[in-house]
């Protein structure tokens, strides 16, 4: 139930932001989740209704933007998806790369009124 605890944390933070900005109603919450973060979007969505019950986020929708796990090959400078290519550069077969993205776990924005 890892995702549920994390969702409670997210609700807490959004509530703070909402209060500060005098938000009355939140329609959509948009999260950014990297492919290499330990969060599974499927479970986040499934648990979302339970986590927002009785909070300012009640009845809101959850949108998740998945950020690809991209690496820059240190040998041939090719950018490739680490998961799809299993950490090996498809052009030169090098396993040495610099991580460009994929570990993000951000509250991006809310649609509100």
């Amino acid at each position, binding site marked *: 139930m890892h995702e549920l605890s994390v969702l409670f944390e997210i609700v807490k*933070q959004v509530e703070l932001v909402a209060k500060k900005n005098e938000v009355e109603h939140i329609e959509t919450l948009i999260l950014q989740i990297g492919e290499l973060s*330990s969060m599974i979007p499927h479970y986040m969505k499934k648990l979302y209704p339970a986590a927002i019950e009785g909070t300012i986020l009640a009845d809101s929708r959850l949108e998740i933007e998945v950020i690809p796990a991209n690496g820059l090959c240190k040998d041939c400078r090719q950018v490739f998806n680490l998961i799809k290519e299993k950490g090996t550069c498809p052009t030169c077969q090098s396993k040495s790369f610099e991580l460009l993205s994929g570990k993000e*776990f*951000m509250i991006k*924005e809310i649609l*509100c009124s």
Partner: protein
Amino acid sequence: MKDFKILEIKQNVFDDNNRQADELREQLKKEKTFLLNLMSSPGSGKTTTLTRTIQALKDEFRIGIMEADIDSDVDAKTIAETGVKVIQLHTGGMCHLDADMTKQGLEGLGTQEIDLAILENVGNLVCPAEFDTGAIKNAMILSVPEGDDKPLKYPLMFSIVDVLLINKIDVLEYFDFDLEACKERVKKLNPNVKIIAISARTGEGLEEWADWLRTTVKEWKEKED
């Protein structure tokens, strides 16, 4: 259609907890209470190891233990028999402790009279790794029956700990556990980690562990003086 506005937040989900954890560390510095966060999966021998650790160090430090469990106080009772101060924290279904709950636990323990506080985190290798509790150092126990492939399965946990205890080495011969391969996997994730092989049952390696903890606590206190 209703008029909605977009409110940009752009905030890392763990920011709030990380801030609270940093505040707690500041507070611990002032109070000169060293907090160790002890993590592992269920059944790795956390409570037995802890009991042995208390016996080794209780004459040198005023020790306080926080037992975090989803429910029950079985572990707290075992620890209470060692004579040190112990409190039970119920996480109420949550799979980890965050900085705020840790702070409340420390208040319950009364840090003024404690030099060394140890938090026995919920038995779980995933969630506790994500949430900084505000501890000065993080320790983890991996036991032989769990397998030497755990660093491959739970990389985050192994990459955030300062010290790793490999427990139950007295049963090494009955399991396909490659100690060297395991150490290598951990070092690859976390080159600075201190790894100590122990058996909380026979006592093997516990002296080295107690030494590490003693030295680390003393160095931290001296640095703050």
